[in-house]
Structure formats: structure tokens, C-alpha cells
């Protein structure tokens, strides 16, 4: 009996033990552990640069290239990721399309990491380390807000000082268009002031990266828009800032790669032209590598999958040159590219895979018509810049990815921003040499463009602008030259549509594109750009709902 009672007592005592219910989580970290080491939050914030996906691509290929007429969506047919097809023809673009919401959310995931790092860095005692890391994080924050801004225009702006429970009280219209640009500029300004000219770890931005991004921000900010996205004024103060900032970068040790190709090959990553790039890696201890998964769909079917992001005929035609070695501004699209008859800019062969030509400079692997998935729908071209040589892919499931870096800002960009600012400031004569630097480099970039027998891949003929000799360099002409040059230089790099919107010409440009291209691609027959709507994406319906109606939809959207 006694023994039994003691059994009861023992059991009662055991279960009453104060800490019986105190169980620590396994394999997780507490807030205190994290706060003690904000450097880890900094690293995680960088990691977001590689956390994109083929339907949420940081390269923005569906948004920057497909929407600009430089690229067809590609894939099996229109219905293969048809949301991107709707973007391609600017029809049925709805606020409840999940891809937009996903893109929006991923930006705020990245921003959340930068803000978390900043919030914890701010608590550290002052030191050079602290300021530098703060500057890096503000650079990243500026980068993410910049991307969000060009996609959605009006966005809720949140920094590290806003407590989480206040987040949903901030409207996407709390700040005006210009105030948003100013916020973004402030981050880059801080970064510019506090980052060293060079970083030991090349993945971190330095002073020049911040200066360049600030120049880019000021350039976009200069083109003032009204509520309906009409460009109402070009702000000369901002343009002058662009010139000053660009000069600071152009005066650094950065420069143009001797060969255009070096910007787009694995073995020449982080070269002289790469001012800021996303660092991808493989064999890095992760299961699949920290690969460029955002661009994975651009791999041709002949290599594996999935043959999206296909250069348009219109883009290929733009690389044709006249006998003077200059682009054919007005009639480039009058006839389709014929390599036997036309001379071309070498950047064509760096940008567009052409049947029968070496794939990524590899004469042993010719890109063939059979590599195309649905040539009747999307033609025979493929995109080269984000791709690598055949043996350099890593298969993940059905996809073929690569570990090549993705450049966010390169020196050529800075040259052309400065040229653009000068032209809009009426100082177009100062711009000619900048554009010519780009053209000269293009002209010299033919060493890798050879067939197996050593002959050049195509008939290359590129020359510089020689005012008074081969052109009449007026402001209008210079503007046309600048805009054409940007297209050729940055084709398929995800920026073209945003250029068109900045310049305020998206509607006229794209509607004329559709008029010509629909004769070549049946599925474009319904394409039409609606001014004062299609310049920006709709604010995702999901976010409007979570904001309890605080967020305001962009103009013009039916749903």
C-alpha cells in the first residue's frame, strides 16, 4: 500500500516538475542569438540577390524584354505561362495574376532582410564596420525599391525604423512618384558616401556601384510623370546630377571590356566592366548550387528545356547596319535579316543565336534550327547572353541552369546614361564620343565570332558616328542614336521596356512594333498597348485586400 502511494507521489512530482513543459526548439535560432551577430543578417540580405525563380525572375525578362518587343515569350506556345503572353500583347493583364503578386512579395522578402540587417546594425556601437555594412544594406534596399518602382510605380515604402505592426498602415500612395525616387536616391547617396572605393569581397557593392546606381535613379527621376504616366517634364537639375555622378564612375578604374563577350561568359566574370553583379555559384555546398534560376527558361530546347525568351525578328533586324556601318533607324525593319545579304553589328552574334552558328563561341556545337521548340510560333532565334556553353549547364529537375553571374550595372550603362543626360540637356555634341566608345568596342568584339574554318560568323560592319561626315548630329538625331544604341547594347538584358516608359514613348513604339510584327507572328494579332495603363503593372489584388483597401490600384485596369 505504501509503495503504491509512493508511486502516485513520484508520478505527481515528476509531472509537476516546473520545467517539464519548457521545451527548446530544435535547429532554430532565437532572437537574442540573431541580434548578437547582425553580420549574418547582412549575408542573408545579399543571398536574396540569388533567390529568384523562373516565374519570378530578377532579370525581369518577361517585363523588360517581352513587353518591349525585343523578345517573344517563347516556350511551347502562347498558353505556356500564358500570363507572360498576356504581358506580351498587353491584354488580360489582371491584378489577380499570381506572378505579379509573387514578384511583389519576393521584393519585400529581400527588402525585409535588408531592413532586418539595418535594424540590428543600428544598435551596434559606431564603427567603420557598422557604417560600411549599413551602407551596403542601404545599397541593397535601394536596388530592390528601384526594381519595385519601375514595375509598379506606386509602392509602400518601409524602412528599418517602422515597427512591423505599422507596416499594413502604410499606403502605396503615402509618397508621391518623386518622393519615392527621392527615398531610393537617399539610400544610394548614403551608400556612396560610406562605401570604400574597393571591396575585398567582390560581391559587395563599392562606392562606384552606389554612385552609378544613384546616377541611374536620378536619370529615371528626371523624367517627371503625371498620375497617368505621361512624361510631363525632364528635370535638368537631375540630368546635371546624372552627368556629375556618371563622371565620378567613368573616372574610376572601371572600364569597358575589350570584348563585349566578356560580360556574358563564365570564365570572365567580375571583369573591369562589371560594376555590380549577382554572384551565382556551383559546387558550393548547397544541393543544387546557387544558380541563376531566374533565367533558366531561356535555355534552348536542344540543350534541355524550355526555350523561352526568344529574340524577336524585329530585334534581330535592328542589328543590321548600312554601308556606312551605322544602324538603320527608320527602315531596319523593312526587310528581315538576311545574313547572306546584310552587314550586321557583331553584337547580333553575341546576343542572338542564329542557326548554323557556334553556340556561345563553341565551334564544336553549332546552334541548330532543331534546337527550337516551336519554330512555327516563335521562330528560330535563341537568346545567348544569359546562356553558357553546352557543358556548363547543371540539370535541376527538367531544367538546365547555370552559375554565371548576372550583371546589374555595367560600365557601358554609365556611359550611355551620361550620354542620355547630355543629349536631353542640349549638350548632345558632348555625347557623341560616349556613344562611339560603345560602338568602337562593338566593332572590336569579333575575335570570338568565328566559324570552325576561322572565317567571321557574319559580315560585320560597324562604324562610329562622325558628325558632318556620316551623320547630321542634331539633338533629335543624337536622341535617336542614343536610344538605338541602348537597344543594341543591352538587348535581352531586361531593361528595354523601362527605357521606353522613361522616355514616354512606350505606346507609339509598341503599337508600331505590333503593326509590323503581327504579320510575322500570328499570335501577336491582338497586341495593342494602351497608353496611361500599360506603362505599369497592376498593384496585386491580393495586396490591396491585405491592406484592407488602403492601396490604390494603378489607373486603367479593369480587374
Amino acid at each position, binding site marked *: 500500500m505504501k509503495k503504491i502511494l509512493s508511486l502516485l507521489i513520484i508520478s505527481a512530482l515528476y509531472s509537476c516538475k516546473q520545467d517539464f513543459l519548457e521545451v527548446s526548439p530544435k535547429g532554430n535560432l532565437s*532572437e537574442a542569438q540573431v541580434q548578437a551577430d547582425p553580420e*549574418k543578417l547582412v549575408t542573408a540580405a545579399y543571398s536574396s540577390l540569388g533567390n529568384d525563380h523562373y516565374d519570378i525572375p530578377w532579370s525581369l525578362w518577361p517585363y523588360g524584354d517581352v513587353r518591349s518587343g525585343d523578345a517573344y515569350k517563347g516556350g511551347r506556345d502562347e498558353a505556356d505561362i500564358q500570363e507572360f503572353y498576356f504581358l506580351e500583347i498587353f491584354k488580360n493583364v489582371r491584378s489577380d495574376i499570381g506572378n505579379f503578386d509573387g514578384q511583389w512579395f519576393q521584393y519585400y522578402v529581400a527588402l525585409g532582410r535588408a531592413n532586418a540587417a539595418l535594424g540590428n546594425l543600428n544598435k551596434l556601437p559606431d564603427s567603420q564596420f557598422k557604417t560600411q555594412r549599413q551602407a551596403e544594406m542601404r545599397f541593397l534596399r535601394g536596388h530592390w525599391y528601384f526594381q519595385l518602382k519601375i514595375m509598379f510605380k506606386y509602392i509602400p515604402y518601409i524602412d528599418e525604423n517602422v515597427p512591423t505592426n505599422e507596416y499594413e498602415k502604410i499606403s502605396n500612395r503615402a509618397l508621391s512618384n518623386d518622393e519615392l525616387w527621392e527615398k531610393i536616391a537617399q539610400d544610394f547617396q548614403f551608400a556612396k558616401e560610406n562605401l570604400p572605393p574597393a571591396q575585398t569581397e567582390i560581391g559587395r557593392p563599392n562606392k562606384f556601384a552606389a554612385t552609378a546606381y544613384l546616377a541611374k535613379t536620378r536619370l529615371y527621376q528626371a523624367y517627371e510623370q503625371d498620375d497617368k504616366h505621361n512624361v510631363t517634364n525632364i528635370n535638368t537639375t537631375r540630368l546635371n546630377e546624372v552627368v556629375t555622378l556618371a563622371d565620378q564612375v567613368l573616372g574610376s578604374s572601371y572600364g569597358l571590356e575589350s570584348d563585349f563577350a566578356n560580360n556574358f561568359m563564365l570564365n570572365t566574370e567580375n571583369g573591369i566592366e562589371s560594376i555590380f553583379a549577382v*554572384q551565382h555559384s556551383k559546387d558550393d555546398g548547397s544541393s543544387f548550387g546557387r544558380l541563376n534560376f531566374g533565367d533558366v527558361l531561356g535555355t534552348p530546347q536542344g540543350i534541355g528545356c524550355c526555350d523561352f525568351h526568344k529574340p524577336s525578328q524585329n530585334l534581330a533586324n535592328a542589328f543590321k547596319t548600312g554601308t556606312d556601318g551605322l544602324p538603320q533607324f527608320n527602315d531596319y525593319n523593312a526587310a528581315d535579316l538576311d545574313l547572306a545579304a546584310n552587314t550586321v553589328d557583331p553584337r547580333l552574334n553575341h546576343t542572338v543565336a542564329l542557326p548554323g552558328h557556334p553556340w556561345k563561341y563553341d565551334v564544336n556545337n553549332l546552334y541548330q534550327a532543331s534546337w527550337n521548340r516551336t519554330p512555327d510560333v516563335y521562330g528560330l532565334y535563341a537568346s545567348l547572353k544569359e546562356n553558357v556553353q553546352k557543358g556548363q549547364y547543371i540539370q535541376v529537375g527538367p531544367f538546365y541552369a547555370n552559375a554565371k553571374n548576372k550583371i546589374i550595372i555595367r560600365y557601358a550603362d554609365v556611359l550611355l546614361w551620361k550620354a542620355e543626360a547630355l543629349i536631353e540637356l542640349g549638350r548632345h555634341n558632348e555625347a557623341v564620343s560616349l556613344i562611339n566608345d560603345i560602338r568602337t568596342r562593338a566593332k572590336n568584339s569579333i575575335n570570338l565570332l568565328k566559324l570552325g574554318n576561322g572565317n567571321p560568323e557574319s559580315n560585320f560592319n560597324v562604324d562610329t558616328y562622325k558628325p558632318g561626315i556620316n551623320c547630321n548630329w542634331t539633338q533629335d538625331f543624337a536622341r535617336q542614336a542614343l536610344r538605338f544604341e541602348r537597344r543594341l547594347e543591352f538587348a535581352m538584358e531586361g531593361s528595354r521596356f523601362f527605357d521606353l516608359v522613361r522616355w514616354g514613348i512606350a505606346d507609339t513604339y509598341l503599337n508600331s512594333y505590333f503593326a509590323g510584327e503581327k504579320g510575322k507572328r500570328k499570335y501577336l494579332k491582338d497586341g495593342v498597348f494602351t497608353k496611361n495603363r500599360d506603362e505599369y503593372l497592376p498593384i496585386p489584388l491580393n495586396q490591396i485586400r491585405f491592406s484592407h483597401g488602403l492601396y490604390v490600384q494603378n489607373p486603367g485596369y479593369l480587374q
Partner: protein
Amino acid sequence: MRRLLFIIPLLLAVLGVSAQERRITGKVTEKGSGVPVIGASVVVQETKKSTATDANGAFTISAENGQTIKVAYLGFESAIYKVSAGQSTINISLKESASNLNEVVVTGYQQERKKDLTGAVSVVEVAELKKVPNNNPIQALQGRVPGMVVYTDGSPSGSNTNVLIRGLSSINGAGNVPLLVIDGVPTKGGMHELNPNDIESIQVLKDASATSIYGSRASAGVIIITTKRAKNGEFQITANARNSYSFYQTRLKMLDAEGYGRAVWQASANDGAPIDSYMTINPDPANKVYVYNFDWAQNGNGYVLNKISLPQYIDPIQKTMRTANTDWFNEISQVGKYQTYDVMVARGTDKGSTVFSLDYTDNDGIVKTTNFRRISARVNTDYKLLNGRLSVGENFTANTTREIEGNTLNAALQALPIIPVHTVDGAGWGGPWGGMNDRQNPVRLLEDNKQNHYNYLRLLGNAFADLEIIKGLRLRTSLGLDYGNYTRRDMQLAYVSGYLNNSDNQVTMNNSNSTKLIWTNTLNYKRTLGKHNFDVIAGSEIFKQNDINFFGRSQGFASEDPNYMYLGAATVLKENGGGAYETRLESYFGKFNYIYNDKYLASATLRYDGSSVFGKNNQFGFFPAFSLGWRLVNENFIKDNFEFVSNLKLRYGWGQTGSQDPIQGYANRTLYQTNYGGGDPTWRVPDGTAYDLSGKGSGALLSGYQLIQRSNDDVKWETTTQSNIGLDFGFLRDNLYGSLDYFVKKTTDMLIKPGYIGVIGEGGYRWLNTSSLENNGLEFLLGYKGKIGSQVNFDISGNIASYRNKITKLPQEVINTYGGNGSTDNILGRSIGSGYGYVADGLFTTQDEVLKSAEQNGKGLGRIRYKDLNGDGRINEKDQTWILNPTPDFAYGLNFNFDYKGFNLTMFFQGVGNQDINVYDVKSQTDFWSINETGSNKGVRLLDAWTPANPGSSIPALTVTDGNFERRFSTYFVENGAYMKLRNVQLGYTFPKSIASKIKASNLSVYVSGQNLFTLKSKSFTGIDPEAAGFGYPIPTMVTTGLKVGF
């Protein structure tokens, strides 16, 4: 526990034998028929000596004059016989017991007589259950218990089985899983791992007055399962063998090679641009070859397709794949074969009892290569010591299961019919080529997966000691264990299947194990004082769960021999990982039952539970309950005036229970983690924390932390409050019997980790107590036992239940969680799971209709017209409303049982009344070309889609892209899922004892049965099986034969 071990040997010493006895022989027969009763227990009350009757109903036992012999047999009233001088032979006839009300049922930590129950408790007819061949006995409960719905599929293991008792009680799946208490050990593990033949009884506790003794985990109801123990005097060997063949009930009709071509051509023609060809297989501009070539013409009515021609090979250069017309469903299907064998030995004496059982089950599913195998063993023993005052024992079962999964139904639907299964050499795999969709050959998926399976070892049981301290006062301690060890190896073989190929073979191995320990101590006092009857229990319980898991993956194997492909044999170790989980519960409880004069019943329950998952502020929850009962049948005014009433009891109960199961983790913490690689990016956005800051391109990376959860110190138990009023009745000696229950069940503070506004970024999740939910419903059970003539006995019973469900509180934090427009038009007052969407208002059939209708992106002829609900002339997200209510009108079961001599015929029907079901998964692929899985094969219904030449069709015109946004959730995808199924029909025959005894058997029976032989469903239902409207493993039709023998 150690103390207990000291006690046992002391008690084992008690043994005793007495003298002066003589042999008495006798025979036990059934009263009336005179048939011998086999296995009846014969006990001398004074000496506790016991034996059992043999195959002839005969027994021999030693007794003295004046001692009492008691003969008992289940289902009969016990007989008592006093041994008189000189008598050596006695014949006893047993009378069948009129009622099962004296049956003892196991409720929370106690046993009660069925007639004394005051809660809503359903006692399941286990014998009926066993007539249905299911691995998982829970599946067989479908339709048996009013208010209980079983959701399942047809997978060979039966593991995918979910039970809902009295409707959804939580928004969380985990909060709706009833607690299983197996021999006193609470678990939420799968029943398919255990041997169904071990089950002696099943009780379903539905209302809170019955369940609240289980407190913290009982919100969704409790199913109490007791396994077999041998009765005193029993010595039996029983064996069962069963064989079933299973078949598809019905199959989705898919397009063939020609039909697919027709559909794709029609889609392009409808869009005004008919194609000449489809699917380039050789894109060389000079030498183009297509799979489909169309010969079409234009006439007054539009475009007409004359002829489709297909090439001889779908890879015309390589010529390895001949153009086929493959029926992929046929290719992946087989006749399933399900066999199960079990044997049980039971022996009971007054010193204790032993049950030993073995089971072997092997089930090949109707999808090729899928298989489930189980071997299980059980030993239940107990020893009676201290003259029966102490019993110690255990219930223990060890089970190994092994399953080859592989449901490729959806893949079979999507694969193109022009692709051959194999290449022309018969060895290689067929696969997509050229512009075909990138879906895998479903046969290859199955074949390459057939060596991949899991092995699961589950040990479940408890050891107990039960001591009667003084008469009526019992102390019981029980230590329970539920242990699972899961190992799995997945070999991914290199393959070439059309353009799909993978040259890297790979192996992933997983191991996880889970240990759950439950220690329960109870003190129970029962006492009868005149007309007063008390039963009091107090106890404590602690629960501890520890899980640990790890996995490894490696690549590059020199051989694909299954004996070779282990992690260590690879050339590249790719990845490993692992984690652990721990949770604890601490509980105290008590219950008081009181009965006065067999008429008035009352009980009260208290339970106090603490859980490690909650914040300090609210770690413990308190769950009270009470119930009252009134046995009207024992009142004189009933007895005197209504003689036909044999049972009448009114019950009322109220109680609360809690739930913490939704929280898998630790709600009270802000949690960060490292996430080096960010996971497999194939189908999800990676969220890694490592980055190549050095720019080296390879090598170890720096890694950081990510936030995964925000804390909430106030998070507390989700609480369900339930009241129940019930009436049990029996008339005409209980030949007509039944019960009626009405309940109101309200869940408050529902635990949820809601979605949140995007600007918060990652890790914005946190556990909150939010909305409230209310269910109320009626349950009715009615049965009649009767005779036709003198030979045919029958028993017909039916049950029907209906409930309504609504959200009664909806805080702002979760206003977006349940659908609706995120503000005023929300789910408040509606059923949980209600669907919000557009109203499809038929098709546009004339240009005039198109012009006159509201502005709608992509409208056109043959397209779905949506209703402009807000009348603003524009179709947009504001034109949505509530279009789906998932709560069925009612659910029912109907059982017929006829006995004629040795024959037994059973029919069991089960059904569900009108219910809205979402058929998007299937209908989006049978009625549309381009809204889901574009480029894949489609259902044959497409050939009847709307065209100007087929204006009567209600299926939207085929189109190349979904410009009209028809994939939006609309009434087009809501159908009536009412059905009635003939679940089981069985004819059995029990051989006369005279024949059975020729093979030395005490009984012998055979049966043949069929399951799911037919289904009635709503005429408007377009899918296959309203019970499983998606692509789950199909529920088969089965034919079963079986043999039972007992010795």
C-alpha cells in the same frame, strides 16, 4: 515505474490448490435449438476454477457439493447452477440475451455499462466492419456512425484516410483529426499499420461530455479501440483468409490520337487562324516534319476539318518511336489483388490470459506496381495476482509495413496518345519529341519507381498494473509507447524518354523516428450504497514526443543494381540534412459518475492540460464537462402505461475540449534559421541564406539567418464547447431500437497562422487565436430486428445525420484567410470552406449577346458569360459571390442483414445528400483546351464543345489561350456531389458444426462479397467519382472471397 517492478515478484508468489473435489461433466446448448455452445466459459465461483466447452458443447470441471457453477457466453444470459450431492452430469441451456444494454463499453479511462452512458457515444458493430476488406478499419467506418464522415481514396495502404466527427471543428486540418485511444494509449497515428482483426471493440465518443476527459486533444472527437483479450475459460484458435480482386469503377474518357488533333485544330480554327500542322518534329526549314497535318477547308459556316494525317514516326530522323494511339490509362492499370491472412490464439484462465496474433497482408493496387504489405504481430497478456486483486499485463503490437507508392493518374491523363509506351526495339521508353509537352511517360514513372518504397516499423502498446486496494478502489498505472521508425530509399534511375532524359542516377535515403511515451496513473473508486451508485476517477498523465530525422542524397552510381545503390557507393555526395522535434503535455483529470436507482444518471469531468507549444501566458487550459441522464424506462408511469417500451433514456451533456495539434512547433518563439541552399528550386522560389560574396563561383559560402516565425506569448488553446441532447430508445424487447441526438458545437479562439500582407516579407507568420466556428446538427439511428417465418432473422438499421456549419467571428487579421473580397463580403455566417467566385451565365451564342453584355476581357462567341453582379457594366473581381457551400445536406448509411440457417446476407449502402464540390482539377482538363496543363491530353468531352455548328453545347468553345480568364473560379466548376454507393454486399455460409468438426474445427464459414458495386450520382455531375473528385488514387470496385475457421 521502478517501484512497480519490485512489487510484481512479490505478488507472483501467490498460488493455491484445494482438495475434496470431484469431476462434473456437462453439456451447454442453446435454448430452443439445442445447438451446442462452443467456447462458453464454465467457472466454479468459489474456487475460480474454469474451463471452456468443447466442440460438442461439453465440459468437465472439478467442484464440491454446494459450490456454484457459472456458465457464460457472449450474447447469452449467464446461467448459474448449484452443485448438489451425487450429481456428476449437468445439462445447461443458455438463453440468448435480449438486449446488449448490459454490454460494457470503454469510455475515458473507465468502463461503463452501455445503459449508463450519458454522452453521445456510438458503439460500432465490429463484426459488420470486418465484412469489408479494408486495410484501414477506419475506412470501413464510413456510413456506420451517424455524424461521422470518412474521407479516403483507394490507395493500397489505406493511409490516406481522414475522419470528420460532427463536421469541421477547426480551420486547421490537424485540429480535425480525432484522437485514437488504443488500449488506453492515445495516438493520432495511422490505423492502416495495425491488424484490423485484433480489434475487439470500437467506440466513437462524439460529444464533449464524453470526450473532455481526454481534454487537450479531443476537440475533434475520440475513437476508442480495444484489442482482443482472452476471456476466462476460452481457448481458441481462429484463422481467416481473404482474397480480393479490384477494378476501376469507371474511368475518365480521354482523347485518342485523332481526337487530340481534332481538338487542337478546332481551338485554332475558333480563334480564326486554323493551323495546317501541329508539333514540329523536324524544324529544319528545308525539311520540316510535323506530327499533325490538317486538311481543312472554309465553308459558309466557318472552317471544316477534312482529314488528319500523322507521320509513321514521331521522330522521323531517328525512327525510334512509331506514332501510336496509346491509352495511357490502360497502360498503367491492372487488376488489383489483395490478400490477407491472419491467425489468432487466445487462451484465458483465472490466472490470466494470453492473446497472440499474426497478420499478413499484401495488396497490389489497381495502378501497376503499387503495393502495400504488412506483417504484424500482437501479444496481449495479463496475470491475475493476489487472488485477482492485482492484474499486471501488457498490450503490445509490432508492425512492419512497406509501400510502393505511385499514383500516376494525372500523368496518364496528360501524356499524349501519339507517344508509344516503348521505342520500336521494345526496350527503350517512349517520350515526348519536338514540340510536345514535357510530361513524363507514366509507365516509365511507375517502372522506374517500383523498387522504391518505405519501410515502417511501428511498435504500439502499453504495460499496466491494476490493483484493487480495497473493494471498489482501484489504482492503475499504464506506460504507453507509440514508436515509429521510417526508412526510405529512393533510387532515381538514369533514363531517356523522348527528349526528356537524365543521365545522373541518384539515391536519396531518409530515416525518421518518433517516440511517444504516455504515462497514465488513475485511481478509481466504485461503490454501490443501496440505490446509490458512485464511480469516481482521478488521474494524471504526461506525454512526451521526440522525433528525429535525417536524410542523405548522392549521385553517380556505377551500377543501378538495387543491391548496389546505397549512399556510400556513389561518387558524389550531394546533400544531407536532418532535424528534430519535441513536444510535451502534462495533464490532470477527474470524473465523477453517479447513478440513483438505475434511473437518474449524472457525471462531471474536469481536465487541466499544459502544453509545451504555448506561450508562458497561457500554457494551461481547463476543460470542464457535465452530463445528466434519465432512464425513463425504469419509471413506473412508463412501465405501467407503455409496456412495449423496453428502453428509454434521455441524455444531456455539456463540455469543453481543447486543441493544440495545429501548432507543429513553438508558437511562443520568434524563430530564425539558417537555410544554406534554399531548397530545391524546381517548383518553388528558393529562400536560401548563403551567398557567394567572394565571387569565386564555387567553394563554401558565407551563410546567414532568416526569420521564419514571429512570436506570440499569448497564444492559447483552441477551445470547443459542445452541448448535446439525446434520446435512446428500444421498443418491443428492443427489436425496434435507435437514438436521436442534437448537438451544438462551437469552436472559439481558432488557432491559425494566417497569410499576411506582402510588405512584411518572409517570416511574417505567427500563431494567433482568431475566429469562431459553430456546428449544429442532428443524428438519428433506427434499427429493427425481426423474423420472417421461423427461419429467417433479419436486422435492418439505418442512420442519417445532418449538420450546419458557420463562422461566427472573424477578426480583421484573418479577414483574407477564408476568401471573400477582403472586407464586407466575407465568410462571416457561412460555412468554413465556402467558395467565392464568379457566376457563369452560360455561353455567348450570338454576336448580339456579345455586344450587349457587360465589358469583359476576352468575351466572344462560345465563351463563358459571367454575371455582372454589381451591375456596373464591367466584369471584374467585384462580381464575385459565394458559390460553393461544402457542407452536405445530410449523410447516411443503411445496413441490411439476413440470416437463414447457416446463411448470412449483408448489404450496406452509404451516401451523401446534395453537396457542392469543386471539380476544377478534372473539369479544367475535360472541358477546356487552354486553362490548365496546356498542351496535355484532354478529356473526350472537348469534342462536344461549342462551335457555330454545335450551338447547343454548354462546353465553352476551344481556344488557344485563356483570354476570357475562364480558369477563374466560377459556378462552372461547382457541381452536385450527391451519391449513394453500395459499399458492400456479402453472402456468407457457416457450416453446421457436424461438418466443421470433421476437420476438427469448432466453426467454419466462407463468404463472397463485393464492394462499391454501384454508385448513384447526380445527373449533373460530369466527373468520375463524387467521393474522390480529384486525381487521388481511385476507389476501386472489389470482389472478395474469404474463409474463417476456428478451432
